C-alpha cells in the first residue's frame, strides 16, 4: 500500500525515495542482498556475481544509450579494456583489487572517450556502426598485443585478496561485485538529479536545441562515453576477478549486443530498466538450460534437442519485447505497481 505524500521541502521532493514505504521496501531489498550469500549455493552466488557484473555494465550502457541516446555496440570491448588493465596491474604491479578495479574503469573510460569522438560527427545507426568498428579494433588489439594481453592464450590473474584472505569463490567475489553494482546504480540515479544527467537526456531528445541551451555537445557526449566506459571497465575488472582468466574471446561483439538487448528488454531510459534487463537476460538462458536438463531423466536427448530452442527463445524475447512491449520490463513493473498502489483498499 502506498499513499500519496505531501512534501514539506524541496529537498524531500528531490530525494530518490519519497515515501517511507519506498524506504522500507528498499531496506528489505538491501537486507535480502546482504543475506543472499549465506543461504545460497555456489552456483546461485556465481549467477549473482554475473548479474552484478551485467548490472554494472548495463547501467553504463543505459547512461550512454538510454539517457544520452548514443548507441554503443562496443561495450564488451570496453569491458575487455577494463579487464585487461586490472589483470595487468594486478599481475605486474601487484595492485590490490580495490585499486585495480577503478584503474580498469579509468583505462576503459579513456579508451571509450577516444572511440566516442566519432559521436560528434555521426549519429544514430552510423554511430552504432562506428562502435562496432571500435569493438573489432580493440578485439584485434587484444589478440595481437601479446606482451600485455597474452594474445590468443590470454592472461591468468591472481585471486583478489582481502586481509590476507584469497577471494576465490563466487561467494567471496559477491562482496566485491554487489557493492560495486549498488554503487553504480546509486551513481546513475544521482546523475539524473543533476545538470549532468539532464544534459544527457536533452542531448538524447534533441541535441541541436540542447546546444542552444548552453550544453556543450562535445563535452557531454564524450563525458557520457567516458562514464559509460568507466562502468564497463569496472564491470570487466570485476569479471576478471570472478573468472581469473581472460582471453580475447571473452569480449566479443555478441556480448555488446547482449547489453543493448538487456537495456531494451529492461526498458530504455530508466535505471531500473538496466537492472531488470541485466537480471532477466542473465537468468532466462540459465533457467531455460536448467529446465532442459531437468527433463533429461525422462527424455535423454532433451539437452541436445532443446539447445537450439534456447537460441530461438533468446531471439524471440528481443523481437517480442520490441514489438509488443517496447517500453520493456520497467513498464510492466510500473503497471503492476500502479495496480497495487492503493492495495488493499482497491485493486
Amino acid at each position: 500500500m502506498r499513499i500519496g505524500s505531501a512534501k514539506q521541502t524541496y529537498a524531500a521532493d528531490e530525494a530518490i525515495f519519497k515515501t517511507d514505504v519506498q524506504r522500507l521496501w528498499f531496506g528489505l531489498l538491501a537486507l535480502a542482498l546482504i543475506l543472499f550469500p549465506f543461504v545460497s549455493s555456489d552456483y546461485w552466488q556465481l549467477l549473482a556475481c554475473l548479474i552484478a557484473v551485467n548490472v554494472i555494465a548495463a547501467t553504463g550502457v543505459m547512461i550512454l544509450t538510454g539517457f544520452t541516446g548514443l548507441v554503443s555496440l562496443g561495450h564488451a570491448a570496453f569491458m575487455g579494456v577494463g579487464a585487461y588493465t586490472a589483470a595487468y596491474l594486478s599481475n605486474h604491479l601487484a595492485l590490490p583489487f580495490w585499486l585495480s578495479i577503478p584503474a580498469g574503469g579509468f583505462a576503459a573510460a579513456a579508451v571509450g572517450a577516444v572511440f566516442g569522438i566519432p559521436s560528434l560527427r555521426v549519429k544514430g545507426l552510423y554511430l552504432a556502426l562506428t562502435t562496432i568498428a571500435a569493438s573489432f579494433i580493440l578485439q584485434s588489439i587484444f589478440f595481437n598485443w601479446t606482451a600485455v594481453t597474452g594474445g590468443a592464450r590470454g592472461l591468468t590473474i591472481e585471486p583478489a585478496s582481502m586481509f590476507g584472505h584469497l577471494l576465490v569463490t563466487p561467494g567471496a567475489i559477491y562482496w566485491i561485485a554487489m557493492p560495486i553494482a549498488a554503487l553504480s546504480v546509486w551513481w546513475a540515479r544521482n546523475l539524473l538529479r543533476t545538470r549532468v544527467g539532464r544534459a544527457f537526456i536533452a542531448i538524447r531528445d534533441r541535441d541541436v536545441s540542447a546546444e542552444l541551451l548552453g550544453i556543450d555537445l562535445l563535452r557531454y557526449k564524450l563525458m557520457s562515453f567516458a562514464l559509460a566506459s568507466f562502468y564497463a571497465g569496472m564491470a570487466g575488472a570485476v569479471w576478471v576477478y570472478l573468472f581469473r582468466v581472460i582471453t580475447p574471446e571473452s569480449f566479443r561483439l555478441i556480448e555488446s549486443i547482449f547489453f543493448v538487448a538487456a537495456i531494451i528488454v529492461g526498458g530504455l531510459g530508466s535505471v531500473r530498466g538496466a537492472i531488470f534487463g541485466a537480471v532477466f537476460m542473465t537468468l532466462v538462458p540459465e533457467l531455460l538450460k536448467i529446465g532442459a536438463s531437468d527433463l533429461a531423466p525422462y527424455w535423454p536427448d532433451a539437452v541436445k534437442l532443446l539447445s537450439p530452442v534456447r537460441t530461438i527463445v533468446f531471439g524471440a524475447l528481443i523481437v517480442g519485447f520490441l514489438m509488443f512491449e517496447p517500453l520493456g520490463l520497467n513498464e510492466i513493473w510500473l503497471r503492476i505497481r500502479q495496480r497495487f498502489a492503493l492495495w488493499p483498499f482497491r485493486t
Partner: protein
Amino acid sequence: MRSDRRKILGGIGAGALASTFPAPWVRDLRAQEASEIPVAIASPMTGVFAFAGIEGTDGANHFAQYFNERGGIAGRKLRLIVEDTGYQVPQAVAVFNRLVAEYKVPLFLGDSTGFQKTINEEVNRRGLLLAGASFASEIDDPKKYPLQYMPGPSYSAQVGMLLKHIAATKKGARIAFVHSDTEFGRDPIAKSEAYAKTLGLEQVEKIVTPPGSFDVSSEVLKLRRARPEFTIFHGYVMAPVPEFMKQMKEARVETQFMGTFYSSDLGILQKMGDVADGYLGVNAYNYVNQEGVSGPAMDFIKKANGGKYRTNSYLQPWTNLTLGTEAMRRCLESGKEMTGANLKAALNTIKDYDMGGVIGVPISIPGNSLGVGRIFRANLKAGKMDPVSDWIRAEA
C-alpha cells in the same frame, strides 16, 4: 489486440519461468542416491562447436550405458549430467559451479581449452578430476594442471608424430604449416617448428589464417610459390581445409596434406569431398568402422550405433570416461575417498591398460596425457581410414 498479445507474451514468459524456477530448489532437496556416481559434462551443444558437443554427448551417454550394463563400480552406476555451454567460457563456468555444487561430482568433463584453463584453480581448490575436449599442449603439464588429464596426445605431440612420419618417409622434406589464428591453432606451432628443425626438415612456409575468414586464395598463392612436399593443417575442423586442398590441386602443387585430431575425422574428410582422398591424419583412437578392430568396448559401440559411423568427437568423452571410471574403480578398491588428488594418483597407476578396442595398443597415463596416436590415410572410395603407421608413442 495489443493487450492480448501482451497477455500471451506475459503468459509465455511466466510459463517459462514457472516451469524452471522451482527446479533447482527442489533438486537441492533431492537426496543423492548413494548407488550412483554422478559425472558432469559441460558440452557445447550450440555455437561453433555444437557438432562436436552433440557427438560427444552421444558418446558419453553410450559409455554410461556400456559401463552400467557391466555393473558399474561395485554396483554403483554412472549417472551423467550434461549441460550446454554454447562453447563460451562464462557459460561453462556457470555450468561447472552449479553441477559441482549440486551433485558433488568426482569427475567433470569440460568443453574447451579456455574453460579448462579458467577453471583450473577452482578444480584444484575443490579437489576433483577434470578432463575435456582440449588437447592443448599447455594442459599437458602435471605441475600446472595437477588434477587434469586429456584423452590422447597433446596437439604438439600429434604434430610431432606427423613430423616423425615425414622424416621417416623423406629425409629433409619441405614442409609447410597452415594454422588458424586462434588459441587452438597457435597452440603447438612454436614447439613443432623447433621439432621439425631437429628432425632436419625444411620449413618453407607458415600460413596463419584469421578466424572466420573464408578466403584462402592469397594463402594458396604463397604455397604455390613455396611448393611444400608436406602441408600440415592445424586448428581447423573443416573450413578452410577443403578449399586449400582444392585450390592447391588446381594450382598443381604436389603436396601431401596432413592434419591433427579434429580435421582427421573420417566423417569430416568425407564431407570435404574427393580432394581429401589420401589425406594423412593423426588420430588418438581407432575409427569406428575400421576393419579388424574389436574388443568389448568397440563391439558395444558398433552395436549401439547399428553400424552408423561415429566421429572422433564421439570417442573422446568415451575415452575420458573410461579412464576416469577406471581411476575411480582403483581409488575405491584401495579404500580411498574419491578426491581429485586420489583419483589423479589412481589414474597415474594405469599401465598397459586395454581400452577394449578403442585404442589399438595398451595404454598408460604417466602424466596428464595419453601419449599414443596413429597415422591414417583417407581412403574415401572405400569409405575408410587406412592405418599407415603403427601406434606411435609421443615423445615429450
